């Protein structure tokens, strides 16, 4: 273990600016500090490890108008929140290079207004959906950041004095708030009602509003600054999360405890008397006596580092690997504690989840960690040369200068509370080729992908790149393999790999946060599929298990030699084997519906529609649908040329070599494209789009004066589609062509 106080970490010019808060980014690329001079600094985490690292201070942000009391990263690692004495909470995101001197450009993208006084503490829920804030106005406010709402989602009253700390438990089931009124209130995160008030003494004499608490990662304990033991010893209380009563106390600080921070990992600790290793949590405790002590679950004595600063410890932060603790102080400096194995071996995430699963039969929720799409250190924009600025004199005598516009917006769009925000989830886009933008007018656009709406998350989690389909779907080292079943997105079929004796994996159906059922399997799950009627699982060992939607195994496990893709819809299940054979089964009737080969089409993805018709996307971007009567694959979408622009119906060839100056041939090309489209629509059975296209087609033919084709289309409509025939006749009448056609 070694301890360092890097002199490059400071705020302000004189290095004595109290640093009130510090937090390490979950990906460990950066850490942030908030200081009394209203600035927030973003630092390069590598600078703590690598002495050669040059770029240390990435940004200085000064948008607050008061001391920044708390800075906290969102578990999704992309944004962070800062709370200040100016009553505001700002959510920050990284943007592409700007004009400032910062190495990285961080922009405050929202301001959360709602508190009436200084914001003291912030805590994100584990999935990053909610942010809780506690303030001197005695309130705890819950913000729905994911929904991009700028106003309070919930205002929790209950404290009679300042709220000094808030914390979500690892399962996001409870929110705990600590107040100056010596109360610890536990709130239920479902309905945000108070469950319990724990009144025991936080009986410090001085009103020290600096107090932070922490849940241990195994959710068994809550550690918070505790009462005085005797005249010169202060302690931290360790509460049991079952009944919120004190289980034990960590005694030793010479002045009140100010901060408790829990390590996000568990450690394997070997007992000297037992040969067994137990899993223990660790917390770092900082006090007003400028000492940091690190305790594990069953320690009777901590690792204590005394007199690290000349003032109180204001905040502590652990790195996600459990090896580094950062502490900041009111004396303006930051200390780094590097732990080697003093606490024991760090437990892997998989083991930790198995451990949690054993204890609670579920694992804590996790955020979708969005990997940064841009390089961490973006280039600055070069200042552009000055152009003319315009100046006029207004009627009231005032000058008005029109400034020179420099650059397109570098920050996110104008703050519009009505904008809906969709977090970026790297999705394999084969199933969701969006052909129309969300703002498309009511013009029917061809959505070939009506076949399937399901997001195939298992593929993303298996492969790092969304479009990289490896030959064998890799066994999942990650915890989750999941599939959305309902289109509303809240019913999910999930699989977990467990490392237990006889049970290799488990699958469960989850609605929102509630687990509907769970089944354990002897084999290791590889691929999942599900619809509103059933769930199917293909395992590594070559077996297919089918369960009803209620969770009961519907059929005995089936031996299937290989499976590359598996999709389902309604009662149908489609499997594409590695030998390019495609099988579609009707599980309700227990019948094989289709059996065919996909030989030379290199399949990128598979989907099945409600009637059991399979559709495949080839690696060249074409879509094929299997026609049973002809036993052939029909191509319904070309690669390359997008005939129709995503917004509507302007049949224009987008390929330049098709555009000729000859208007006639241009028209002809367009017409033939519409014909192909008509054919496809008819084949796919999209009636509305088909009628619309027919009318458009007729209009085009009229413009082109193509009498023959007009006769043809009207004749065929006359016999097949009376309604459409009537409508087309009306169009023709209006153009006075009906007579010419002599129908």
């Amino acid at each position, binding site marked *: 273990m070694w301890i360092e106080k890097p002199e490059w970490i400071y705020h302000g010019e004189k290095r004595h600016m109290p640093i009130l808060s510090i937090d390490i980014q979950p990906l460990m690329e950066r850490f942030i500090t908030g200081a009394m001079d209203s600035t927030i600094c973003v630092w390069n985490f590598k600078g703590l490890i690598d002495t050669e690292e040059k770029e240390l201070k990435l940004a200085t942000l*000064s*948008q607050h*108008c008061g001391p920044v009391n708390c800075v906290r990263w969102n578990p999704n690692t992309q944004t962070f929140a800062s709370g200040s004495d*100016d009553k*505001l909470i*700002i959510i920050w995101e990284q943007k592409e290079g*700007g*004009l*400032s001197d910062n190495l990285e450009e961080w*922009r*405050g993208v*929202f*301001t959360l*207004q709602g508190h009436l006084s200084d914001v003291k503490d912030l805590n994100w829920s584990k999935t990053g959906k909610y942010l809780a804030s506690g303030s001197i106005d005695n309130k705890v406010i819950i913000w729905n950041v994911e929904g991009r709402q*700028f106003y309070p989602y919930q205002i929790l009253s209950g404290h009679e004095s300042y709220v000094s700390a808030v914390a979500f438990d690892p399962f996001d089931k409870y929110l705990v708030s600590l107040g100056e009124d010596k109360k610890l209130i536990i709130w239920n995160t479902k309905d945000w009602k108070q469950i319990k008030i724990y009144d025991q003494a936080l009986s410090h004499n001085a009103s020290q509003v600096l107090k932070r608490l922490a849940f241990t990662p195994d959710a068994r304990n809550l550690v918070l600054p505790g009462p005085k033991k005797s005249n010169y010893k202060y302690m931290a209380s360790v509460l049991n999360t079952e009944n919120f009563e004190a289980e034990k106390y960590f005694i030793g600080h010479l002045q009140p405890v100010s901060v408790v921070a829990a390590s996000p990992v568990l450690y394997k600790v070997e007992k000297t008397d037992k040969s067994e290793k137990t899993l223990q949590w660790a917390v770092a405790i900082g006090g007003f006596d400028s000492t940091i002590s690190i305790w594990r679950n069953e320690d009777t004595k901590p690792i204590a580092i005394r007199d690290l600063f000349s003032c109180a410890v204001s905040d502590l932060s652990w790195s996600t690997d459990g090896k580094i603790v950062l502490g900041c102080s009111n004396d303006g400096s930051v200390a780094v504690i590097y732990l080697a194995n003093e606490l024991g071996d760090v437990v892997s995430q998989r083991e930790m989840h198995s451990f949690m699963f054993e204890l609670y039969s579920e694992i804590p929720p996790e955020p979708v960690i969005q990997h940064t799409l841009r390089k961490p250190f973006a280039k600055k924009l070069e*200042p552009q040369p*000055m152009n003319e*600025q315009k*100046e006029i004199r*207004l009627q009231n005598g*005032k*000058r*008005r*200068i*029109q*400034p*020179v*516009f*420099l*650059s*397109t*917006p*570098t*920050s996110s769009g*104008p*703050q519009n*509370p009505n904008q809906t925000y969709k977090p970026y989830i790297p999705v394999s886009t084969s199933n969701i080729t969006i052909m129309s933008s969300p703002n498309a007018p009511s013009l029917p656009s061809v959505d070939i992908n009506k076949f399937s709406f399901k997001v195939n998350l298992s593929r993303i989690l298996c492969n790092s790149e969304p479009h990289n389909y490896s030959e064998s779907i890799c066994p999942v080292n990650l915890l989750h393999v999941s599939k959305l079943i309902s289109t509303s997105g809240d019913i999910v079929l999930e699989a977990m790999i467990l490392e237990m004796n006889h049970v290799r994996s488990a699958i469960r159906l989850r609605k929102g946060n509630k687990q509907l059922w769970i089944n354990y399997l002897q084999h290791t799950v590889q691929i999942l599929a599900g619809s509103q009627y059933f769930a199917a699982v293909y395992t590594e060992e070559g077996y297919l298990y089918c369960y009803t939607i209620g969770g009961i195994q519907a059929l005995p496990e089936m031996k299937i030699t290989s499976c590359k893709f598996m999709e389902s819809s309604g009662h149908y299940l489609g499997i594409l084997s590695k030998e390019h054979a495609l099988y579609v089964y009707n599980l309700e009737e227990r019948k094989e519906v289709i059996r065919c080969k996909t030989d030379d089409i290199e399949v990128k993805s598979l989907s099945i529609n409600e009637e059991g018709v399979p559709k495949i996307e080839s690696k060249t971007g074409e879509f094929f649908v299997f026609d049973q009567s002809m036993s052939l694959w029909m191509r319904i979408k070309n690669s390359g040329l997008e005939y129709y622009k995503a917004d509507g119906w302007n049949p224009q060839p987008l390929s330049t070599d098709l555009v000729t100056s000859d208007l006639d041939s241009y028209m002809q090309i367009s017409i033939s494209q519409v014909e192909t489209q008509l054919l496809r629509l008819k084949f796919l059975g999209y009636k509305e789009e088909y009628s619309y296209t027919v009318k458009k087609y007729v209009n085009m033919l009229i413009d082109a004066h193509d009498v023959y084709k007009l006769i043809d289309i009207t004749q065929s409509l006359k016999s097949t589609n009376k309604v459409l025939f009537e409508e087309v006749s009306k169009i023709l009448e209006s153009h006075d062509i009906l007579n010419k056609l002599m129908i």
Partner: protein
Amino acid sequence: MAAINVTNVRVLNNPTSFLESFRFEITFECLTPLQEDIEWKIIYVGSSNDAKYDQVLDSALIGPLQYGAMRFIFEAPGPDISKIPVDEVVGITAVILTCSYKDQEFYRIGYYVNNQYTEPELMENLPSTPIPEKIQRSILEDRPRISKFPIEWTSSKTN
């Protein structure tokens, strides 16, 4: 959070003669669309003891405000020497740039200004009536004093 974020201010003519106009190049970002213009003013502090000697050298409305980064040069005539107390013409004083929106000041940047005679003899024996042509004005550009004030940007409830 401020809808306008001033990212850079440069003094273009520095040092210069006392009589010369002030020229500042101001770069700022507009983060939310604003209905009205912002108003910039240059104020010369005639006397550090009394605010009544402050001279508003000029003011300008800046607009229309587009969303994004913008830059402009603000030029204002030099101070009127007759309005400055005689004993405070030479020496340290200050010039302040302020920016307001809907008459609410949200940004203020101040610079110390040093006025000196170029000829050392004049500095030793200060003339009773100042000779502006011989005074050099130097703005201490690297030590600005910036103040930001939170204001109401929109009148409606939504941000």
